[in-house]
């Protein structure tokens, strides 16, 4: 690589410091000796477990529904595709509180589908299911973009060859296309899980903050930040560690996309 100009290095150092300082701030407030005890407190443990369970469930929804949506989007052309993509990916940039409001007016008791869901005995708002829905809503676009982009990079030749060898559509999808975009699906799942784990605004708005039911780790941190800052910091550090692990897993160097 060519030698970089000094002013650029200086700006890069400032940017790096900006990224690292908040983590250092968290670490500086941690009571490392009591960290295990704080994490073992019922409130923290319950919140963390709920977070992991709901994020896993939301990621499952993203795989089951987001992958087909990515395929469908990739099959479209022109303006339809551009418009549909813009609408479907909006949750990526929507303020989470707006997403929460939307979910409330769609699936809440007085929402579009509220009565139907109630009648079916499936009230959603302010339940754990609402947490999962909120997370899936904001995380789905990661899977959709990931799948759509990796499909756009394929020329369909292997699929065509598979057809000449007698394979039907479902077999081609399962045995040729999906393995070919496996890395992209994995990446989408990792990012969706990370986004779900960090979900706060939509969850609070749509699901509320009920201990053991809808109070995920981010909500617990927010709640404890004044009453018990040490516990908030401890839980925060766990999320930091998870985030770094996830990013490292997703961007492992030398991992090549199989095509």
């Amino acid at each position, binding site marked *: 690589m060519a030698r970089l100009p000094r002013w650029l290095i200086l700006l890069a150092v400032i940017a790096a410091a900006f990224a690292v300082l908040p983590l250092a701030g968290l670490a500086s407030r941690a009571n490392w000796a009591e960290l295990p005890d704080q994490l073992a407190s019922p409130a923290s443990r319950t919140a963390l477990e709920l977070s992991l369970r709901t994020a896993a469930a939301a990621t499952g929804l993203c795989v089951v529904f987001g992958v087909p949506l990515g395929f469908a989007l990739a099959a479209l052309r022109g303006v339809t595709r551009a418009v549909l993509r813009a609408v479907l990916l909006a949750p990526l940039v929507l303020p989470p509180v707006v997403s929460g409001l939307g979910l409330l007016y769609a699936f809440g008791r007085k929402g579009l589908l509220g009565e139907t869901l109630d009648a079916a005995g499936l009230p959603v708002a302010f339940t754990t299911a609402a947490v999962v829905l909120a997370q899936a809503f904001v995380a789905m676009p990661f899977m959709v973009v990931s799948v759509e982009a990796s499909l756009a990079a394929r020329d369909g030749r292997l699929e065509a060859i598979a057809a000449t060898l007698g394979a039907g559509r479902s077999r081609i999808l399962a*045995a040729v296309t999906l393995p070919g975009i496996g890395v992209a699906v994995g990446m989408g799942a990792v990012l969706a899980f990370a986004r779900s784990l960090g979900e706060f605004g939509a969850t609070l708005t749509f699901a509320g903050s009920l201990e053991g039911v809808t109070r995920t780790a981010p909500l617990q941190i927010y709640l404890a930040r004044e009453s018990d800052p040490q516990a908030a910091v401890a839980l925060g550090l766990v999320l930091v560690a998870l985030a770094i692990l996830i990013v490292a897993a997703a961007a492992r160097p030398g991992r090549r996309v199989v095509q």
Partner: protein
Amino acid sequence: MKLDATVAVSARGVNATLSVPAGETLALLGPNGSGKSTVIEVLAGLVQPDDGRATLGNTALFAHEDGRMRLTEARRRGVALVTQDASLFPHLSVLDNVGFPARARGVTKARSRIVAHEWLERAGVGDLAERKPSSLSGGQARKVAVARALSSEPKLILLDEPFASLDVDAAVALRALLREVLVGRTAVLSTHDGLDAIDLASSVAVLDRGAVVEQGPTAATFERPRTAFTAAMAGLVWISGVWTSHALTLADGQSVYASGRGLAAGARAAVAIDPRTVKLVSGDTRSAVHDVVKTLEPRGDGTLRVRGSLLWADVSIAEAARALPHVDDPVSFAIASRPLAYAV
């Protein structure tokens, strides 16, 4: 099974008609860009034709009828394709690539692997079974692709430029394999090399700018090409004219002496000559053909191609050194042995 096809793809300027007798191999011969791959891909079902029809045995591959194109899905055609890049599935082992068609027929994985092993052994690459496609050489990958195509038990096998970009040893090995496995199979093999046709195909269809300009048994087609294009693909000088008792009279009135048993005076006829038997001679030689030099092309094999507007000669460097003509100079060609003229 017999193949009869007319393939038209107007966007690519292709409108080609060809037929392959059951159990025989047809070489689809033409230079790059002549439409070989398009014809192959249409037959395989990868590219949609906009006109024409094709039948393989009793099945229609596609047919343009009442203004509508009826297509049989690629997977129901029984037509296997070996592409230039082998198109192996990168995430599957060599064994599972070859077992793929059996799996698609609903055979269990274990059983498909037994079948795949047999085909790999027949292709002489049984030792590659556990390898991933990315670790294969070009020649190995193409042999595996041939094994995979055969394992689909196709009624027609298509080979798109099977020797393209292979080194000499790999090409020799693949050629030996194809010579063996194509026996008794209906096959179409595209190539830009006449030698592939002689070696592997009983008949040849010559493709020029999307159209088949000539089709016939390989040997006869190359010995007596009916177009300058086919002659050029066969590496022959081709001269056509009108037969007059013992010579071919060219458009400019010159004569090329030839034997033409059975030819009627006034019939359109042609001779096809090995350019190495054409010599440069001095201008007053009787029976010489007088021409003007258009290009001088070094051949790389120690000969120089002196190309005139009517015919050309491949002369040795020594001969060229004795009397090197220049572009636009007059030149006289003599044909060493009296060629055979035939009706065209």
